[in-house]
């Protein structure tokens, strides 16, 4: 940029402006996509173009069941880490038995949904972007359209359903695995029995805590579906394009999840 400073600033402003417009456009697209997939879910059947439950079920298996082992391992590890850190911190006040409270609340309100969201974004968000991107490159999406099969109804609505149903369920599973991790460590370190740990945890955790976690996970599910699908539909330029979009989908989905989590936590705890 060998131009005058004024034009340098103008250029930067222009670049920022364009980025903002792009971002707005992308969010507009997400919004339209939500509306359209809801439209097909609500009215598809009466127009004789129903959303296939079998497709949704298949997605649920992919999103939920197939990921359970890794969710278990990571959530368990998070539980252990929370116990280690908690005990270490609380020891300074001689209050290490309070660790159960810390684990129970941070797992159900924060770490369960977050770790689930990140894992599903990594596993299913990328798979989704790659699958739809490949279909796009191979003209399969065009083929669907010319056959009179709306791609949003056929491809997006089932994914939405699967994400919205499965993320809370997987989050519950993750909560349990993390609590178990905490329990194992507390048992080894503090000699706290599993029964006592469970009793304490259940007496601390309120329905509100669990609901807060679950409602977050629903939002995360919608984010993963939207970002994955959109990046798939936007693929251009062959196999290389698919690779790029897949990476972009994962990075974006995880970023949006963390940001949404922050906003959510702020507003829910005001």
């Amino acid at each position, binding site marked *: 940029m060998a131009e005058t400073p004024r034009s340098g600033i103008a250029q930067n402003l222009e670049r920022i402006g364009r980025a903002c417009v792009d971002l707005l456009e992308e969010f507009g697209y997400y919004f339209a996509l939500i509306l359209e997939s809801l439209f097909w879910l609500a009215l598809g059947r009466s*127009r004789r*173009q129903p959303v296939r439950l079998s497709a949704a079920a298949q997605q649920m298996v992919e999103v939920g069941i197939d990921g359970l082992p890794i969710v278990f391992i990571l959530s368990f590890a998070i539980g252990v880490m929370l116990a280690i850190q908690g005990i270490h911190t609380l020891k300074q006040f001689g209050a290490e038995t309070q660790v159960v409270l810390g684990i129970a609340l941070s797992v159900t309100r924060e770490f369960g949904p977050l770790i689930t969201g990140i894992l599903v974004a990594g596993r299913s968000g990328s798979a989704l972007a790659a*699958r739809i991107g*490949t*279909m796009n490159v*191979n*003209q*399969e999406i*065009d*083929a*669907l*359209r*010319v*056959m*009179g*099969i709306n791609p949003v109804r056929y491809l997006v609505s089932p994914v939405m359903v699967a994400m919205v149903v499965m993320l809370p369920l997987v989050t519950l599973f993750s909560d349990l695995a993390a609590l178990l991790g905490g329990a194992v460590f507390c048992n080894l370190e503090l000699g706290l029995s599993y029964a006592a740990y469970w009793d304490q945890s259940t007496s601390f955790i309120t329905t509100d805590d669990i609901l807060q976690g679950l409602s977050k996970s629903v939002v995360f599910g919608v984010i993963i579906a939207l970002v994955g699908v959109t990046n798939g539909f936007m693929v251009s330029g062959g196999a290389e394009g698919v690779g790029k979009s897949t990476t972009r989908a994962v990075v974006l989905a995880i970023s949006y999840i963390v940001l949404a989590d922050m906003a959510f936590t702020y507003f829910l705890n005001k």
Partner: protein
Amino acid sequence: MNAAAAIEVEGLVTHYGSRLILDGVDFRVAQGEIMVIMGGSGSGKSTLLRHLLGLHAPTSGSIRLLGKDITRASADEMHELRTNMGVSFQGGALLSSMTVAENVMLPLREHTRLDEQTMNIVARMKLEVVNLGGFGDLRPSQLSGGMIKRAALARAIVMDPKLLFFDEPSAGLDPVVAAELDELIIKLRDSMQMTIVVVTHELDSAFKIADRITVLDRGRILLSGTVDEVRRSTNERVQDLLNRRPREEEIDADEYLRRLTGG
């Protein structure tokens, strides 16, 4: 020509971004006719086809399919129309997540209330028509290029459409299979009165199947006529295409220099 037009395109102008691709295309296909679209690479054949399929919105002009202007049609009207259209894409575009038979059955499953058994039988019948009987359980990735094209044709005709569109049916196929596909296209028209639009590069194939040929050149229609009319045409660029002569374009020196320097 007294038969009713199945396809009528008037003044079609299209852009990709700001680049003009089709420039005032007029185009008419009568019912039960086989129309072949020819033209050099990049002349806009595939683009014209994609507009006929309603995959893009044109800049201006009208496209009437079976009497309905698709540039104005509502989503429901378009949906209705699409159940009367079959398309075989250049690359086949079979859904790779399904078997060949499931691919062929897909339009039936989505648009009819036939039971599973009947759909199976119809799908097998159509696979027999394209000489793919017994290959229904394979995945598209397990088929050869020619088999994919034929499977895509089977899917395109499974609803017995009134309009059939075919992009490059014989490109990259061995001559025998290509000839079989040509026969098949003629047979479909004769037995089912389909209106068929074929985009092709292959001259032999074009002359064999076409009732009429439309020649596109740089986004404009050079000529639209019967096979004989096209053969007798004195237009230089048509003759270049027919005789496989290299283009003898005059180079504008300034323009050329400008392109090279990217100015």
